[in-house]
């Protein structure tokens, strides 16, 4: 058996969350992990701790505490200004080995995934990626990770008995955001770190980041599938009527009708809208997991046997190309005129 750098016997009963920050803002997914961590830490009597790395990021620590952390391990260094895999792996690894948490979670963001993948190999431990739920079994303190298997139809529970830390990543939107409590008390501990510039092989040449689209918390989500035959304009019109956003299944994204950041489902975004309107979508499992958290699902499909209707509150049997123009007309108080 391959052995990890520290064993379950040497662990501390703490849950660590990687507090990912970009340009001075904590990522929502990190806060979501704090919220889930708080619940489990309270159940078990463990502590919840955040790992915060960057250049001038101490100002973010109080928000981590307000969102549930008991303690923030803070490492600030000029070489941590931008995320480079070498520097972040090195520092995170040092601190993990010093403090030996039982559990370590990261958001499944581009940088979070890269860091998790490196660290798991460096520490010779297990990593459960894209978990849909996280629990800790109270007797032995085993992290039980729920991941959805092939297409989302099957859930697997995965654990590691002999390796530490028990690592997992979770995509944005899976857990609810915490309600920050500014009066919560916690400690911030600034850590001395040893970072040799020579290990950093990655050079950041250029970086351009806008606000970005976050479908995970849009209240009205209008999604389209193959049945839209590429006509996403009409879905945009409809979305705008309620300040919503357009999402899509994989085929229209692959065909270039919609940007990949709008893909909903297992390999896309997990959304929790008030209303998800599904237009011309057959209802494959890997899409459906993306709208499962919707309060209300309305599906329009011309095939009454379409699997999407299994997952809908209202099943509209009709042709999207006929129903949607009528719907926009009704909502904007106009008559549809047929040429």
């Amino acid at each position, binding site marked *: *058996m*391959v052995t990890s750098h520290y064993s379950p016997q040497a662990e501390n009963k703490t849950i660590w969350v990687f507090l990912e920050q970009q340009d001075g803002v904590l990522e929502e997914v990190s806060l979501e992990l704090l919220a889930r961590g708080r619940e489990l830490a309270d159940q078990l009597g463990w502590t919840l701790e955040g790992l915060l790395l960057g250049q001038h990021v101490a100002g973010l620590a109080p928000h981590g505490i307000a969102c549930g952390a008991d303690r923030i391990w803070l490492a600030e260094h000029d070489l941590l200004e931008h995320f480079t*895999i070498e520097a972040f792996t090195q520092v995170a690894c040092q601190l993990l080995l010093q403090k030996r948490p039982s559990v370590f979670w990261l958001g499944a*963001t*581009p*940088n979070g*995934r*890269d*860091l998790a*993948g*490196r660290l*798991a*190999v*460096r520490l010779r*431990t*297990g*990593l459960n*990626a*894209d978990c849909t739920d996280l629990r800790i079994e109270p007797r032995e303190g085993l992290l039980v990770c729920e991941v959805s298997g*092939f*297409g989302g*139809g*099957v*859930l*697997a*529970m995965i654990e590691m008995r002999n390796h530490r830390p028990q690592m997992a990543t979770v995509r944005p939107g899976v857990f609810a955001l915490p309600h920050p409590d500014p009066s919560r008390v916690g400690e911030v501990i600034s850590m001395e770190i040893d970072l040799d510039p020579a290990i950093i*092989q*990655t*050079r*950041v*040449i250029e*970086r351009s*980041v806008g*606000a*970005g689209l976050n479908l995970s918390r849009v209240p009205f989500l209008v999604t389209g599938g193959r049945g839209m035959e590429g006509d996403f304009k009409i879905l945009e019109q409809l979305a705008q009527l*309620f300040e919503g956003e357009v999402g899509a299944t994989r085929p229209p994204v692959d065909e270039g009708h919609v940007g*990949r950041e709008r893909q909903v489902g297992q*390999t896309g975004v997990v959304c929790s809208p*008030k*209303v998800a*309107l599904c237009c011309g979508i057959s209802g*494959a499992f890997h899409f*459906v997991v993306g709208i*499962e958290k919707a*309060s*209300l699902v*309305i599906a329009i499909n011309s095939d*009454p046997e379409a699997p999407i*209707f*299994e*997952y809908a*509150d*209202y099943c509209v*049997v009709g*042709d999207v190309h006929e*129903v949607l123009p009528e*719907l926009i*007309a009704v*909502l904007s108080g106009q008559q*549809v005129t047929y040429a």
Partner: protein
Amino acid sequence: MPELRQVVCMKVVPKPEEIRVDYETGLLKRASARSEINPPDMNALEMALSLKDFYGGRLEIISMGPPYFEPVLRAGLAMGADHLTLLSDAAFAGADTLATTYTLAQGIRKLGGADLIFCGEESSDGATGQVPPGLAEWLEVPQLTLLTALELDIECRVARGRREIKGGYEVLEVPLPCVVSVKTASNEPRFMDYRRQYWASEAERLKVWNAEDLSADPDCIGLTGSPTTVSGLAEAASRERRRQFLTGTPSELATQIAELLQKSL
């Protein structure tokens, strides 16, 4: 200038749209699905092939899996790869990310390493994207992940890639050799060259290596080398929905939907 050496890691997966779940048992009817090359790996292969078009050199496909992967992977040879190496051994079975990346790294070392090691962004069956950074760690080389474009400076031996991040992109530069993961759908994989098909089917295009060939540490492969274990399976309990059917003419349907939207939003 020495020739450019590229390795592309590929996986064979069941076609997702053909996977059926047996609701009685909660298990997957894998036999009902045909196999294909993991679609994101085709984008990785295409990026490597386009560099080969320009710089020449040698391009090797490497894969870990059972012998039935072989005929599926030969499509990559027909697209333009030079050789295929399949890491196949019953002892590799049950590997999680740690054991998989170790085994692939051993295979790549035995091939003599490479300037560029390509992976797809993620696999369509696992969809975790953890292989590229793990592989880079075992090989002790830098990584460029989620790239939509890659250029090389062969003289200076550096790779420069455009990487997708939330709300934008960044351009990163690393020295060769490095691991590259390619953003899904960032290019249009070429069709097979039918004139290469016979050549691609020839026996000498393929090497099969087992654990002994790789001098693999038995503690690091397959189930033994995998820290994680599956402790249970369950059918995904999908949320109960009302499933109320609405019928009528398009305008009647539209009126009903409009009412629902106005009530709920």
